[in-house]
């Protein structure tokens, strides 16, 4: 990992209609960006989920991915946990390394 900077990567899989408040939390936490992948398919706690639906973006799963410095990540992780407390959705947190840290705040 020579020359790379350690960051925290947070991935959240959530229903499309519940994604806006998560996006708002990500930007409020100071993340400089995120990646949104709609139409995520798979099998989870609530059963199977179809992939992209042609005319319905609200009821498919969306995966939001953001990378930010560890000191900013803990507040976001805590807030997302609060939001996911009693509803559907999962969060994955992992260490990651980036080559241009200035891109990630």
């Amino acid at each position, binding site marked *: 990992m020579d020359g790379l900077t350690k960051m925290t990567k947070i991935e959240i899989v959530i*229903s499309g209609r*519940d994604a*806006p*408040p*998560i996006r*708002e*939390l990500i930007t*409020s*936490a100071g993340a400089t960006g995120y990646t949104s992948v709609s139409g995520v398919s798979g099998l989870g706690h*609530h*059963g*199977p*989920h*179809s992939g992209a*639906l*042609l*005319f*319905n*973006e*609200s*009821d498919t799963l969306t995966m939001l991915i953001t990378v930010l410095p560890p000191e900013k990540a803990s*507040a*976001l992780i*805590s*807030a*997302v946990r*609060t*939001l996911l*407390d*009693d*509803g559907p959705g999962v969060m994955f947190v992992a260490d990651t390394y980036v080559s241009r840290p200035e891109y990630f705040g």
Partner: protein
Amino acid sequence: MSLEVRAAVAKATRAVIPIWPLSSFIAVNPLGGRESEDFSVAAVMRSLSAFRADYSAGRITDVELAAVLTNRVPELDDAGRVTLNGRDWTAIDLLVADLVRGEQAPSAPVLPAAPDRVDELVAKWVAAYLDPHPAWPMPNRGLGLWAAWGAMARHDPQLPAKARRQLANLPASADEGLANALTKLGLDDGAADQILKIEARRMPGWVGYIKWRAAQVGDIDLTSYLAVCLTLRWALGLPLPEPTTESKTELAAKPQTDLATDATRAATLAASLSPEPAASATLASIARILALHPPQDHAATWQAAYEEHYRRRLLSSLPVTSERVTDPKVQVVMCIDPRSEGMRRHLEVDPDIETLGFAGFFGVPIRFASYLARGSVDALPALLSPRHAVTETATDTVQAKLRTNAFRVRDAFTAGGHASETLPPAPFALAETVGWFSGIATLVRTLSPSLAGAIDAAQHRTTPLLKTEVTVATAFTLEERAAMAETGIRMMGLDRCAPLVILSGHGSTSANNLYQSALDCGACGGNPGAANARAGAAIFNDPNVRDLLKKRGLPIPATTYFVAAEHNTVSDHIEILDPHLIPESHAAAVREFTAAQNTAADLLVVERAGLLPGASEQPLARLRARADDWAEVYPELGLVRNAALIIGPREMTRGVDLERRVFMHSYRPECDPDGTALETIMTAPLVVAQWINHQYYFSTVDKNLWGAGTKTIHNAIGSIGVLAGQTGDLKIGLPLQSVSVGNRDLHEAMRLTVLIEAPLERVWAIIARNLVLRQLFDNHWVMLTARNDPNSDWQRYSTSGWISDPLAP
């Protein structure tokens, strides 16, 4: 702390359904956030006395009650039977008798949150913030609701001096403000979550609208709103908010019957069934049977029986044998909207006409701006985000210039008049100078709506008509256009093309009607469907698109031409759009269709008059003049009485009068080899149809809580929404005049019955992999009946599998 507060707000408002503004009214299920719960738990139903009145009138029968009980109470098979006064009573007989004659449990009270001082103040400031007066906007508006309100509230004369002093030093941000208010109110994390949820439910109209606006406009959010609410509550020293009906339902345990209650019910029932006193052992047996169906379940059983009556009648009405029109000369593709059903039925009197149903945006989701328009509309289902902007280009530049000049002159007069109305001293001078002319215009519009309509039409004719084309070819790539055409063909089962194919969107016209857009096309985002129909026709006529379709095995004959049109649901005329684009080879066919359509339109207007209040004796011209009558609260009845969605080929229903109650989406399994088209229909048009159905349902069941109440006291807040009176919550749902006449309901509050003709394993697999469908069907928000093909028996969907339908023909 800031993020935690925002997360708490998001969690507290997760179940809030966004409310669209009046300008693009989108039907929503107001309880859509609770679809993960069973309908009978989350929703409210009509009163038991209303159901019993329907039973007395024959609208619900013993057969349907028994069928529903068999389905809902499987333990009845082993529940035994009793003998009373020489008659043998099965368990089902007794439960039916209990429903019809037994002691009536009181209905759960529907208690909207009693408005308090905070609601009144918040509604005032939020309205001022969101609908700024053009001359006097709220100061500091650009800083957001919290900052703008904070700067003004300390000077609000409606607040006591002590409260104003407390509001003098508020935190700078809404996040900090909300955290501060929660601390001052002495709420820890758990209590704060609950109070945020309760506060957010006090004014569901404003909260739903702010949720929509936060996502679509971004100048306000729910954190600011709740910060203002709770800060005011603290500053005024008011008690914490009380739970509303919905949250009370959640908080309070459901009442449980005990043996004494069952015994009482048994004694009451036995006394009503037999003049002789029943033996104690018999009463005990009756009590054990009644315990299987406690009073809190009665409303759900009545509701299901009410719907079963309609479902059974619908299935019985469908033809046993079906034949397809051979070699049609014209195919008319109309929106799935129930209002299209009447038009399709009347058009099909002509054996050369075949009709199909498709979502009214014709699979072309666009943001549309007409020629020289100042703004645009999102002409697409609310389930999608706009990604493609389409506009118009003029095909005749000289004519376009003339029209532009004419509009400039008209706009100058309009702007002058508007300025005179809004600038402080000007209205007095305006009234003195042009008031007399306005008075004459007012008299004409009041006494002769049809003359007023004719004058309006003549005014429009003074503006040169513009020949344009929609810019669909630049908004979408060729591959995208071909994909949209292929999707449309597969979804509606267009396996052959007549020489003339008409894509007809729909729109409505009415005067002085704040709910105008509720009568437009839901699939087009609460807008008229003309733009989408024009875009669809342009795509299907594109030779490059046809080349690609041919390579995919979906050839469109060179002799086929697609024409865009729009169905006016007040006059029932179908207007042909872009007539300048129609080739001479098809002009005669279009003229013939127009003649056939005029006849169908007259018949349909007369048919609809049977339900329109005060219309049964009116001549055709007067019925159509309702669109121009500014005193008319019933220009048309929209989707009232909608009850079912049928997905299948037209042969299933052709020739049957479905009373304009059924959404109809064409579908042929043979055109959809992998089931993708059916999945698209079930996850989009079906979802939108159930939104509309539940909006009508809840607006009927509680006209003030879930509906907008009577139009007669509505005050508009810009184009955002309406208030009942001068202040309070923004009204949600439909006005009383959309579902009732006086105390008589026009709409029958039923959940959507869905009928699908498609391979059952395909339908099952689609439901299994889509959570939205599992919730709708498994939790009984929508009822599904399906069959493999025309020769198979109908089967009812249940969580445990398909159930042979004993009531179906």
